[in-house]
């Protein structure tokens, strides 16, 4: 295994020990819900693919929060993800080229890797007035999506906007915005969240590279490894709920005691996501740990169905 030896030497030069690296792989493997026997396989995916899988990342109506979330990836580090593991052929927020040069890159990549690229979509698609409210290089989001999405090996919708329409689709939805699946009438893999935890995107991609297929999905297209349980079921404050110990005001004694936030409007019981176990930014915290109710951001139409956020759901 000369290649493997070289790989670990390269890592060590970067100040990453083999042990640390296997820890990264362990985190990803655990998030995906795979047994530890998969760790070497995950390591191989990260190590040295012969040809880095091409990715075309499209931005439609969104806030770029999902790209920003991905930029915060630490398992693996974002620079490894975008430079060593994947071939990010098109991504407007970070690519060097602009204007015609950027357009050329998009068309060339779509042609060269036809049927082979992973298409990641961030943002919803305007449909009112034939999609006139959102354009890139003179073409509507809808036209761009129709060119790029059908020729992808797999399309992954990152965030609640591309998955389900997101905030711009909230009532009264002035631009007629829809999620990608809805707008194009196709099935997509959805990684909702506002924004989602980057580990769930990484897990999905690694699953694809490792096993050659997409992970098991629920009926909303969400990978079960991440969206299989409710927030409430994994919540460390669950025992307070069972004991009837509730926060009724922010800044109160009950808040200081870390009681259950259900009466403050927490949507944890209605929300499928792995926030309590994966946590955010290197496992530093998540909303309920920070004393804030869950707003249900990985559920379809949560801007309408989960609001008012600070009231118990009826």
């Amino acid at each position, binding site marked *: 295994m000369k290649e493997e030896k070289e790989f670990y030497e*390269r890592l060590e030069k970067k100040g990453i020990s083999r042990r640390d690296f296997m820890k990264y792989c362990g985190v990803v493997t655990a998030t995906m819900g795979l047994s530890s026997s998969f760790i070497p396989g995950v390591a191989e995916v990260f190590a040295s693919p012969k040809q880095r899988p091409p990715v075309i990342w499209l931005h439609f109506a969104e806030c770029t929060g999902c790209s920003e979330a991905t930029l915060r990836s630490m398992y693996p580090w*974002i620079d490894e993800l975008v430079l060593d593991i994947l071939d990010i052929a098109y991504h407007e927020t970070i690519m060097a080229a*602009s204007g015609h040069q950027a357009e050329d890159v998009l068309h060339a990549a779509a042609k060269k890797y036809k049927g082979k690229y992973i298409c990641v979509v961030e943002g919803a698609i305007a449909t009112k007035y034939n999609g006139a409210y959102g*354009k890139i290089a003179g073409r509507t989001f809808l036209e761009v999506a129709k060119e790029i999405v059908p020729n992808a090996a797999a399309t992954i919708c990152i965030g609640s906007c591309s998955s389900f329409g997101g905030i711009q689709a909230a009532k009264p939805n002035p631009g007629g915005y829809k999620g990608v699946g809805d707008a194009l009438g196709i099935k997509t893999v959805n990684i909702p969240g506002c924004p989602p935890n980057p580990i769930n995107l990484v897990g999905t991609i690694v699953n694809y590279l490792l096993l050659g297929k997409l992970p098991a999905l629920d009926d909303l297209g969400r990978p079960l490894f991440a969206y299989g349980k409710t927030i409430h079921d994994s919540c460390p404050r669950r025992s307070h709920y069972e004991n009837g110990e509730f926060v009724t005001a922010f800044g109160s004694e009950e*808040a200081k005691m*870390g009681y259950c936030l259900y009466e403050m409007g927490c949507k944890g019981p209605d929300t499928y996501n792995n926030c309590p176990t994966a946590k*955010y930014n290197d496992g530093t915290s998540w909303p309920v740990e920070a004393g804030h109710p869950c707003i249900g951001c990985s559920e379809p139409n949560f801007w309408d169905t989960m609001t008012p956020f600070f009231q118990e759901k009826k």
Partner: protein
Amino acid sequence: MGKRIIVDPITRIEGHLKIEAEISGGKVVNAWSSAQMFRGIEIILQGRDPRDAPLFVQRSCGVCTYTHYLSSMRAVEDAVGVTIPKNARIIRNLLHGAQFQQDHITHFYQLHALDFVDVVDALKADPKKTAALSETVTNDPHGGTAYFKEVQQKIKTFVDSGQLGLFSNGYWGSPAYKLPPEANLMATAHYLEALRIQAKLVRMHAIFGAKNPHLQALAVGGITSVKDLTPDRIAEFLYVWKQAQAFVRNVYIPDLVTIASFYKDWGAIGGTSNFLAWGDLPMSDKEPESLFLPRGVIMKRDLKGVKMAEPEKVTEHIDRSWYEGNKARHPYNGETKPYQGDPKYDTNGRYSWSKAPRYEGEACEVGPLARVLVAYAYGKKDFKAVVDSTLKKLNIPVTALFSTLGRTAARGLETLVIGNAMEGWVMELVDNLKSGDTATCAKWTMPKSGKGCGLNDVARGALGHWVEIEDKKIKNYQYVVPSTWNLGPRCEKGKLGPVEEALIGTPVADPKRPIEILRTVHSFDPCIACGVHVIDPDSNQVYKIRVV
């Protein structure tokens, strides 16, 4: 008439932006800035619970993730009439300080550097000489010949594989690139380091703010992260802050000065005339007096004439934007509606979803340069010291600040000043907690009706949120954001928006590869998703604007 070129999409920004420029005699002689998307968040907000507004408007932008959340919270707090506890004020400032650090570092390296740094040219560098250069100009703990060899090898593997990824089709090899290969290699190494630093440093947001992007730990009246005001969490915050600020001092600022020294001609290109800052980072309950970033306006580059800025003097113009009607109005009295249908792009008529805000009828630049100039003009010590010493190091006059180079430098310098101050705020928090004050969220009740305003200055510039409450619901919501100020179109008098003004005179060596245009546009750090507004169609009542 000169040759017209269009750059669309402008990449390495947030949102969908198109720039058109007319070039004659190798220079830009006219320019148009066009926002290409309309979402409608202000319309969506109407009729909803005012407490929900901050979470909605936060989704205007995931790059400035904390800023709209904070500004909206302040607007609602103003409307309900609550003063937040001291702990909450300090925590909010700390989160805001971390936002400045993250935003500005990421902008400099990931969004702007490739306009000055030729990544492919770095292949020609001698790693040994690069190591020597790095040791001379920076205090980066990473370095040495082996380190730069490794980075160079990484680029080589990339180029050789034919999978250039993010670096595909950049303007590599353009004569507009001026750095020697060694500086290109050093900066490319720091581009990679910055990617990790920004991911690490937002842990400051997670510690007191639950997560990043889209923090979730503020509440109307204060903060919710009451269980995180512990010694270990505070120590963790300080530890991350220290790493972030070390990067700013040891790498970011030295890189800025080094790169600037090869592009001094950009100290005379890309300037604008008027500057507006609402100011931010309150050091007590008294505003604007206690603002660490002061409030002020400078017209016609007259630093001596700096004056207090007054929100009443703002109007928003729609004559050249895709909305019906054409009368300029104060934000409180707007009455317009978005074009229904596929809008026609016409540089002689309407050409953007963005409106054109004006202060006393004039376009104003907002952002780091405006803030630094206002603070400098007031003679604020921290700012004056770093600005003067940087000008001296580069051997350029104060007037060079009115430029693309000045704008990019101001961003770095304010990161240094704000970051340095953060340590003191942490200590103030510790002292306050020690004194027994553990309040984090003040009590209040929702009034039947009310109006509130939050004026702020965030990474990209002056930001204002306005809310009107009726029957305990949002009647109207409005925000006027930095990128509307900076990247808006012409007004009814035909006066150019700041980026349009700044582009005029910009040299363009090769119109097919207009890297110089990107340089100036990127220096404003455009953020377009939140920059598009529409005023209410049905009435001319106060606070009647909405956005996208």
